[in-house]
């Protein structure tokens, strides 16, 4: 698992945010377009790409994209 790949995959899900501004340290809950549908889309993408089921509390615990990446990595291990 590569952080860089994950960030790219995350960017693919976004429709309004400026991709240039998205990095490992982006606090994704604070994005203007963050919504319940985007949250579900993140869960679905992670399931499809990594075969990992993330839960509501995982999304809550993660502040940044890197936090989320680390949670997925932990679950994958």
């Amino acid at each position, binding site marked *: 698992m590569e952080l860089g790949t994950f960030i790219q995959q995350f960017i693919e899900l976004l429709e309004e945010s400026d991709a240039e501004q998205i990095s490992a340290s982006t606090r994704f809950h604070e994005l203007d377009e963050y919504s*319940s*549908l985007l949250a*579900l*889309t993140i*869960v*679905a*993408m992670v*399931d*499809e790409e990594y075969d990992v089921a993330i839960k*509501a509390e995982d999304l809550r615990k993660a502040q940044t994209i890197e936090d989320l990446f680390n949670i997925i990595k932990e679950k994958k291990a």
Partner: protein
Amino acid sequence: MYNPYQLTNKTILVTGASSGIGRTTAIECSKLGAKMVVTARNEVRLKETLDALEGCGHQMVTADLTNPSDMEKLVATIPELDGLVNDAGIAVMKPVPYIRQKDLEKVVNINTFAPVLLTGSILKRKKLKRNASVVMVSSVASMGSFELGNSIYGLSKSAIKTFAEYCAMEVKNREIRVNSIHPGMVATSMTQNTSLSDTEEMDFSKYIMNRCGKPEEIAWAIAYLLSDATLWMTGSQLIIDGGAHLA
């Protein structure tokens, strides 16, 4: 005592009886005097339901309703019924671009195919008595509440709403009635597992009653549909959602 809502001398099968709305429905129906047949996959949890039923003569049958031989075993085991509650179901939240065939199959198998095939198979074996009542546990997801990410679930529940209407037409000669019930969000393990937030901290402002429902509040409506108070009611949809459809 005068009580047109009683269920004494009725035998009622409830699917999904190991948890949530199904379990509570079984318990409440037993309190209203019914003999219950309860079914689900998990033997331990199903036994807990059986133990919580009031009165005696109840029965449990473990079965996976997506498995044809389990379904056959269930239908062969059960006595003649006055009531059938098709409650077993699951929810999966997927945004449209991520829906895969296996998600569809998983949800539709238990939410749609199972109640349709179970009802059909019980009818074929003539195990539904004259004047029996069939209740389909659908959802507000088939009545205009379009929650984002809930399309698979919604289509599975719309299908059984429509099926209930067709079925009601076909069984009318035996005065069997078929109705569907459409709950809004109810606090059960289903809502805990599928939502991305806890029911505790959810926003219920769209619910006129400002809270989510309790399993009893659905169970009592199901009991009503099973009772002789609704002998003249068929092909109807009962929405119970704390008034959310008004918002």
